[in-house]
């Protein structure tokens, strides 16, 4: 993998204080592995002058102090890191189960999604909760995990007009992705249900329930169970 990673990566100046490293231009588990390995290597052996890292599907944005580093210097350092990706030891992914109350007031788009795919609510819930998803990365807002891939039968376009406010805990789909809104934000994904779990809590170790590289399964629960878990 190492020669491929070093040669296959593409560098772009994103701003005068950031460099974008891309591993191809397709969402693949292979590209995700490269992103995760480079992220872990930069976390365990930080580069002086690097301030922040923004992982995504097949790229990592590296933000640096432009008074200490130039793009060219950083690129040379990262080229060296790329030759060592093979040596990065990744732990076995954790499997995190997320309880979801589907439909009703919690999933106002469930019936529209059913209509779009000519499926019953039971079939949509079964499809969404049977799959095991990968956390490609956390982004957009604190603790928002981009999960893939959705079963082909559930691939659905975004809402034509985003909602002004999506409630925290909403479990949603868009394209071949699914995710959980950790905080109330505007959003254009279609809402299938809601989890009573807090996805992002300042007092929690690691803050976010999910981390990049985790595996996730959704577990259907009843409104009664939702209320009980919410109180817990």
């Amino acid at each position, binding site marked *: 993998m190492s020669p491929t990673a070093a040669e296959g990566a593409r560098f*772009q*100046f*994103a*701003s*005068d*204080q*950031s460099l*974008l490293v*891309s591993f191809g*231009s*397709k*969402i693949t588990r292979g590209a995700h592995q490269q992103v995760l390995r480079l*992220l872990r290597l930069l*976390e365990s052996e930080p580069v002086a002058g690097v*301030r*922040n*890292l*923004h*992982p*995504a*599907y*097949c*790229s*990592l*944005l590296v*933000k640096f102090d*432009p*008074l200490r580093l*130039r*793009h060219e210097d950083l690129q040379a350092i990262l080229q060296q890191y790329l030759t060592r990706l093979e040596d990065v030891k990744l732990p076995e992914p954790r499997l995190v189960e997320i309880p979801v109350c589907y439909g009703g007031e919690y999933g106002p788009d469930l019936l529209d999604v059913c209509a779009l795919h000519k499926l019953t609510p039971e079939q949509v819930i079964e499809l969404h909760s049977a799959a095991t998803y990968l956390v490609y*990365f*956390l*982004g*957009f*807002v*604190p*603790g*928002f995990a*981009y999960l893939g891939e959705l079963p082909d039968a559930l691939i659905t376009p975004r809402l034509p007009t985003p909602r002004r406010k999506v409630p925290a805990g909403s479990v949603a789909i868009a394209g071949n992705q699914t995710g959980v809104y*950790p*905080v109330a*934000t505007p959003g254009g994904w279609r809402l299938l249900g809601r989890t009573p779990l807090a996805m*992002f809590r*300042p007092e929690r170790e690691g*803050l*976010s329930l999910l981390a*990049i590289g985790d595996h996730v399964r959704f577990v259907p629960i009843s409104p009664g169970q939702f209320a009980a878990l919410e109180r817990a």
Partner: protein
Amino acid sequence: MSEIHVQAPGLLTTVQDLGREGFGPLGVSPSGAADAISLRIGNRLVGNAEGAAALEMTLLGGTFVFPQGAVFALTGSDFGATLDEAPVQLWASCVARPSQLLRVGPTRSGARCYLCVHGGIAVPLFLGGAATHLLSGLGGHEGRGLRKGDVLQIGPTNTPFRKRTLSPHARERLSPRKVLRVTPGPQHEWFSDAARRAFLSSTYCVTEESNRMGLRLEGPAISSASAGDTSTNDGNTGEMITEGVALGAVQITAAGLPIILFVEQQTTGGYAKLANVISADFHSLGQLRPRDEIRFEQIAWDTARSLLIEQEELLSSLDLILES
């Protein structure tokens, strides 16, 4: 410990420092002062470390009482402040005697005014920083803008009052710009020459929907027709894949209108980015108000770097702050 009592909060007043870097992998953007230069200078005027926490006021300032007195400075835009009815000099350290009333009014120039106090604003740190992150309700004072009746603690104070003012020369050179300098964005090749020329020759208006997450602009729409064209974007499949986004990124929405990502930005995004505002002009973004008209000027990478170095040299020069 000394306190600040909030009698009126103003339109949006938050506790800010220079932001918390390093939490991009969790989706947490740095937040921090929208006009970091005004915060840094304000802190130096009152004898604090540059990054001490202060209050950032937006368009309309608040009314504050210092029951035990305080040394403070107002920096940024002129909000017509008074201390017990007497005008307060901007960009200078001042003394408030116990129970004096600081009234900060509506802006007469840009979007933001900073109230820095000697000792700094003491709030519980979140991820090592004091900055308020409004969207997630974290950091700062209870993760939110200030309200009437809030009581803020002032950190430990030690040095005696010195009258300090910002040199007029530095003030002139650091004044906010309406022509923002940019470097090319990661997807600039997705846009036609005509679209790029239109972007650089047009005047854009800052809309009311702008906030600390992003500045939404109105003006001639930019066509990004090539974004879906597989032949023009260097092997890209033509579909924009969500990627990390830089502070100051100028992303072009489906409607062809620019959004400049700002201090409380989303950490990743799926719109094509045509340009990126240079670091030396970030503080100017923090002073833009709704209905302000701005333009963009493209410069070379080396120039962007030189401008930032010059700005930092000015900020560290010995004659930046005058003492009397």
